[in-house]
C-alpha cells in the first residue's frame, strides 16, 4: 500500500517558534508538495520539489521554507511561526502530471 506519512497529526506551537513539518513517501516519486488547507480556500500550494535539493515556490511561500535532502523526505519549515499560519498542512507526492498521493495532514495551531 503506497504511503505518504506526515510526522505529526496535531501540533501546538508558540508565536515566534521555528516549526518543522516532516513528510516521507515510499513510492520513489520525483515530485513532492506542501499545501495548506483552509475552509473556503481549498488547497493552496506553498512549495514543491521536483528533485533532491531542488525547490520552487508555490502560490503562498511567504513565511515558509523547505528542505529536500533525500528523495523520499520533504520538510516544511516555518521560520518564525505566526497565528495566521494556524492551518491544516498537507504533504503530497506524484510521479509528474498524474495522480497525487496525500498524507493525512498536520493540524498546526500557533498560539
Amino acid at each position, binding site marked *: 500500500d503506497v504511503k505518504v506519512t506526515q510526522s505529526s497529526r496535531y501540533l501546538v506551537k508558540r508565536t515566534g517558534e521555528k516549526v518543522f513539518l516532516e513528510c516521507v513517501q515510499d513510492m520513489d516519486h520525483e515530485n513532492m508538495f506542501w*499545501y495548506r488547507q483552509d475552509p473556503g480556500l481549498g*488547497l493552496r500550494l506553498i512549495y514543491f520539489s521536483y528533485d533532491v535539493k531542488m525547490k520552487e515556490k508555490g502560490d503562498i511561500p511567504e513565511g515558509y521554507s523547505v528542505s529536500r535532502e533525500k528523495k523520499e523526505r520533504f520538510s516544511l519549515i516555518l521560520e518564525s511561526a505566526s497565528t495566521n499560519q494556524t492551518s491544516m498542512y498537507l504533504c503530497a507526492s506524484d510521479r509528474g502530471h498524474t495522480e497525487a498521493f496525500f498524507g493525512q495532514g498536520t493540524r498546526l495551531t500557533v498560539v
Partner: protein
Amino acid sequence: QQQVKQSPQSLIVQKGGISIINCAYENTAFDYFPWYQQFPGKGPALLIAIRPDVSEKKEGRFTISFNKSAKQFSLHIMDSQPGDSATYFCAASSLAQKLVFGQGTRLTINP
C-alpha cells in the same frame, strides 16, 4: 487569481439523489482534471480523473462530465449514499502547471 472555481461550497442531498458539483477553469493548457475526495481526519484521495480527449468518464456511481469549449467540468454522484458525505475538490494541471485546486465542496447526504 483563482484558476479553478468550484461551486457550491456546501451541498445537502437526500439519500438516493444525485449530487452535482461544478468547476470552471481559466487556463486552456490544462489537460488533466481530477476529483479528490476527503473524509474528516484524512488527506484527499483521488476519486476519478479525466483528460480532455473525452467528454465523459464514468466509474461506478461517479461520473465526470467535461465541456472543453465552456472550460467547465462537473462531478455527478448517482444514488448518493451517506458514506459519500465528504469534502470534494476538483483540480486541474498541465505539464507546465502543477495541480491547482478548487475551493472544495462539503457534501452531506441525509439518510
